[in-house]
Every structure is written in structure tokens, then in C-alpha cells.
């Protein structure tokens, strides 16, 4: 009798264990392989780059505006800044053809981490799927930050902290290192969509939401990339490029060229929403471009 009850006990235990272990790990979607960017959203900004002083559609505060107003593009030719890759939040907006691969647990075969590299300078993005905690606030910050992922239905939700200071727009609008990046990666057959938003307590008054898209490219090959900084322009040692407040002569060129009211190009959360068009119609035209002598 004892033997039979032991057998039943073991069978019951095995059943419970089976149910637990046999459950689907989650609705995991495979992102492995090559992806080429569609680049059709915000193409002028992402390709040739934004105009100086164009802050339209960004929910920025005045501190961000001052940083943008005093930014000098010569900053990019400083040796110390030449080899900076795009941070995790901007990488998908740049030259972002990419390759994904996963680490699998040898026992469960579940994905323990996703990795991808975008084309520009090939920074390595790692998304931990093993439930590990984010590091201490005293740990280093990196361009790609520290990312953890979880499945929300068929979407991969990624939370990233520990980012280095980066840029919201490549005309000097900063994104602080205190930001948190939340991303949703959504695959529909051969199309990959990323819906991402950034919360920045230092420079944004509302989260900034952006989307990007890629098409599966099975034959895509990533090429090596090595950046070695060098002096491109002779400058005094410890040169730092910047404009003094009120001295940036290029600041309103964008408004004048595109005939957008000055107030509108200064950005702010209000400029993100469709209702802003009504207000726009009541604003004065920008001044004409100064005639060059």
C-alpha cells in the first residue's frame, strides 16, 4: 500500500512538474538574420541630417533649446567626438541596416539574450532575456545602455537604462544620461517595426515616441567598421566648439527657408500634436533670409 501511494505521489509530482516545464516559455518571435532599413519616415532628417535650429515636433524644454542654439557642428570634427556611435535610441534612426542573433540556453533552448548591430560603427546591442536586474547607479553608462527584454504578446518589449548622454536630433538637441528608453519590436512576416519612446527627466517634458521599419534581408552582409580618430582640422589643443548664446547666425535659416513661423521651429510638446496646425495659421511669417553680401 505504501509502495502504491509512493508511486501515485511520484506520478502526481511528475504531472505537476510536467505542466510547469511543458508550458510555453512565451510567445517568442524569432528576429534572427539580416534586416535593411526602410528609412521612409523622417527621411530628410535621417539621411542628410536636420537643419540647425529645427526643433519642430520635439517635446523639449528650454534647457534642451539652449543646448541646441549654442551647438556648433564643428563639435563633430573634434578628435574626442569623431568616433561616437549613435546611442541605442538614435541607432535605428541612422544608417541602421542590421543583423540580429540570439543566445540560447543549452537546456531549455529559450533565448537568453538578443543581440544586434546596426551598420554605423557596428555598436553591439544586447538585450538580456533572463530576468537579470539593471545595474547599480554607480555602474558605467554606455552608448547602448543596459537592456532587458520581456514578451508582451508577440511584441518584444525592451527597457534600457545606463545610457550615455546622446542626442534626440543631430543638431545639438541632447538626450540626457538619466533617460529611460522603452522599445517594442513587432514582426509581421518580413516587416519589422520598432515603436520606441524616450523618457528624459532633464530635457523632455513628455515622452518622445518614434517608429522605424525594416525589411527582412536574408542575404544581408554586415561589413567591418573601425573608427580611428585623427585630427581632420588643425585646432588649438583642448579646443571645444560652441556658439555663445545669441551669436548663432544660422539659427533661424531653417524657419526662413521653409517659411515656418519662428515660434513653431522652437519645438515643445505642443508642436507634436495635430491641433497645433490651427495655432500655426495665426502666427507671423518668419523674417526673410538675410541677403549675403
Amino acid at each position: 500500500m505504501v509502495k502504491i501511494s509512493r508511486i501515485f505521489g511520484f506520478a502526481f509530482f511528475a504531472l505537476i512538474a510536467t505542466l510547469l516545464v511543458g508550458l510555453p516559455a512565451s510567445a517568442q518571435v524569432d528576429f534572427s538574420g539580416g534586416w535593411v532599413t526602410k528609412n521612409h519616415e523622417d527621411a530628410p532628417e535621417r539621411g542628410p541630417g536636420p537643419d540647425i535650429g529645427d526643433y519642430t515636433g520635439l517635446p523639449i524644454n528650454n534647457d534642451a533649446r539652449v543646448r541646441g542654439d549654442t551647438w556648433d557642428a564643428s563639435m563633430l570634427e573634434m578628435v574626442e567626438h569623431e568616433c561616437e556611435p549613435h546611442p541605442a535610441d538614435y541607432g535605428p534612426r541612422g544608417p541602421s541596416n542590421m543583423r540580429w542573433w540570439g543566445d540560447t540556453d543549452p537546456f531549455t533552448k529559450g533565448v537568453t539574450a538578443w543581440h544586434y548591430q546596426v551598420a554605423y560603427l557596428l555598436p553591439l546591442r544586447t538585450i538580456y532575456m533572463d530576468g537579470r536586474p539593471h545595474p547599480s547607479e554607480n555602474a558605467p553608462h554606455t552608448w547602448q545602455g543596459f537592456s532587458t527584454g520581456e514578451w508582451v504578446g508577440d511584441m518584444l518589449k525592451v527597457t534600457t537604462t545606463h545610457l550615455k548622454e546622446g542626442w534626440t536630433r543631430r543638431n545639438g538637441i541632447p538626450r540626457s544620461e538619466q533617460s529611460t528608453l522603452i522599445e517594442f519590436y513587432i514582426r509581421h512576416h518580413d516587416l519589422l517595426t520598432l515603436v520606441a519612446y524616450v523618457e528624459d527627466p532633464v530635457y523632455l517634458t513628455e515622452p518622445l515616441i518614434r517608429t522605424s521599419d525594416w525589411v527582412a534581408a536574408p542575404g544581408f552582409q554586415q561589413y567591418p567598421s573601425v573608427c580611428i580618430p585623427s585630427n581632420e582640422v588643425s585646432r588649438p589643443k583642448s579646443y571645444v566648439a560652441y556658439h555663445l548664446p545669441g551669436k548663432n547666425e544660422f539659427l533661424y535659416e531653417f524657419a526662413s527657408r521653409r517659411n515656418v513661423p519662428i515660434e513653431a521651429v522652437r519645438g515643445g510638446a505642443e508642436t507634436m500634436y495635430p491641433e497645433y496646425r490651427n495655432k500655426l495659421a495665426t502666427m507671423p511669417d518668419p523674417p526673410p533670409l538675410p541677403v549675403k553680401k
Partner: protein
Amino acid sequence: MDFKLRNYSITLGVPLAALFFVTAAPLLAQQDTASGQHNRSDQKVTRSGVELRRQEKVCNDLPPGGICLTFDNGKVELLHVQGRVYMISGLGANITVQIGDSDVMVIDTGLLHMSDKVLTAIRALTDKPIFYIVDTSMDEDHTGGNASLSNAGWAIPVGSNLPFGHDVSDLTGLTFPPGAAILAHINVLNRMSAPTGQKSPVAEGIVSPTDVYEDESWKFFNGEEVILFHAPSAHTDGDTFVLFRRSGVISTGDLFTSMNTYPVIQPDKGGSIDGFINGLNQIIDMIVPEENEEGGTYVIPGHGRISDRNDIVNYRDMVTIVRGRIEALVKSGMTLEQVKAAKPTAGYDGLGGYAATRDQFIEAVYRDLSKARTKQGKTATGAGR
């Protein structure tokens, strides 16, 4: 859904479950004893009258190798930076600890009233003897634990000719007198001292350096070159930053405070804005990033998180830009109050603890640049246009 990975089937479930209980469960049970970090979970140590207890709830955000201590008044973190170098935060200024096979070097010693805890924290990392202490400045949050740590350490025997070019780890049979050496720039000793019969300006209980250097000093210690550099007239006139060459770590003292504060420049102790910027550039010149302006040589700031070259470059850029803005305002003839009202730090005040240290920074820069203008001095740092 063509792209879903195959779910685990019920047929696989039984053998997997059995395999789990046979193999994985014992392995998981062993993990607690295999990991040093887990080993400490229930540790309760009483040393120097201080209770040390690791609490999982507070410590669950540490990277591998990190240790977290909780004292009655806050959290102390011990993080491995790189090579032989560790950072202790939470006891005043950041404390750098270099641990060799048999000896320890400590850069900065925290606050006086935390000195017991500093020693306890170091002892949580290593029980090896402390041979050298370096003060990066005379500030009390960097020197408070001098006495406690020195008394707990050992001195190199006089006449043994060991400090230069020798690794003390290969010594056997020698007797070491108690009292670790405290090294600092000579100006630190001068400013912590007072003429005979007068009271020293430092708080009671803080001891002065026992050994000083002037321009540069170095030792081969714990298997690597440890080089002390002087940044003249920066945060003070006695600032030292320390390069651990093989580990690839620089401990900066208050020459760099990460996102925690604007530069704290103490003119009454010989500090200046241009010396500060020069000091930052000295450090930047020594750092080599691993790839894409990231990693490589790591930096332990006086306060704040572990950093790398990009972080200190951004800080240098910010300091240079604010200096340039104030210089333009000074040239236009503005008073200090007018300069403050013009908000020369706009764009940066929302970062970390910057707002709290803004006024003293503006005042220090204004004072320096006004003086330079009066004297028709040379002020050529930066490139605003």
C-alpha cells in the same frame, strides 16, 4: 505565425522534468555556495564596533562581483572597476582600492565620522594589509579616514629602499612597523599644517600626509605602475590624480565629479577655472577608449558613477563652454549678480546635482576671469564664437 519558436510539447515535458530534478536542481542549490556574492547574504560582522550586514533587497541591482553593505544610515557599494581596482561609494568621496596579491593601496579615505565604516568596507573586499594611502586633496571628505586606515596598515621599513621599483609582495622575513604611509601633494600638507603654537585648519581627528611629492611620483606596486600626477591650481592647488597603468584605471579626486556637481573650485585653497580645465585635459590625454569612444581606461570620479573618456570629455566640454559664456559676460562689463541673472549655465542645470552647486561655480569663474581682465591676463581656453 511562421516565426514562432516551437513550444515545448507535453511529450518532451516528462523527460525534461525528470532531467531537471536530477541535474539542474542540485546545481541551483550549489550556486549559493559557489558565488562569493551569495555567500555573504547572511553575513553579520562586527568589526570596529560597526555592524555589517548584506541585505538582498538593497543589493539586488549590483553587477557581478559587486558587494553591497548596508549600515544604519545608508548603502555603501563596492564595485569592481577593472584589473586590480575597486570603487567604494557612499562614505564621503569615492574611495579607490587597489588590491594586490598581498598588499593594498587606498586612494582617499572618506569622511571622518565614517572612518570605521571605510575600514569595514575595505575589509569586506580584502583582509590584506594597507601599505599606502593617497589623498587627492585636503578636503575632509577625502581625508577623514586617514588616521583609521593608516593605523590599520603597515609601513615600509625605513632603510629598506623599497618604495621605488619594488613590489613589496615579494618580501619575506621583514618586520613592518604599524602605520601605512599617507601620500599627497606637498600643498596638501602645507594647507593642513599650521605654524607651531597655532591650530591646524583641519578638523580634529584628521591626520596629515606622512609623505609628499611635488610634480609627479610613481611606484611599482601590486604588479603595476601607479603614477601620481599633480594638476596645478585646479579644484585646489594640491590636487592629485592617480593612474593605475596596468589595470587601466584613473582615480581623479574632485577634478571630475561625473554628473554629481559643477566643478567645485576653491580659490582660497589655490583653485582656478583654467587650472581645472587644464587638469581635465591632462586626464583626457591619458585615456585610451577601447572602441567607439567607450570603455578602455576607466575613471573613478571624486563623486559619482564609474566613467570613461566620453564622460569626462562631455564634462570638459560643459566646463569650457560655461567658462566661455561667463568670459563674454565679464568682457561686457557685467557685475557678478548680472552674470548670475544671465544664466550662463543654462542647458546644464537639470543634470544630476548641478543646480545645487551652480552659484559657487559661477562665482569662482567670475572671480578668476574678472581678475584676469583687470590684469590683462591671458585667457585662451575654449573657442566660442
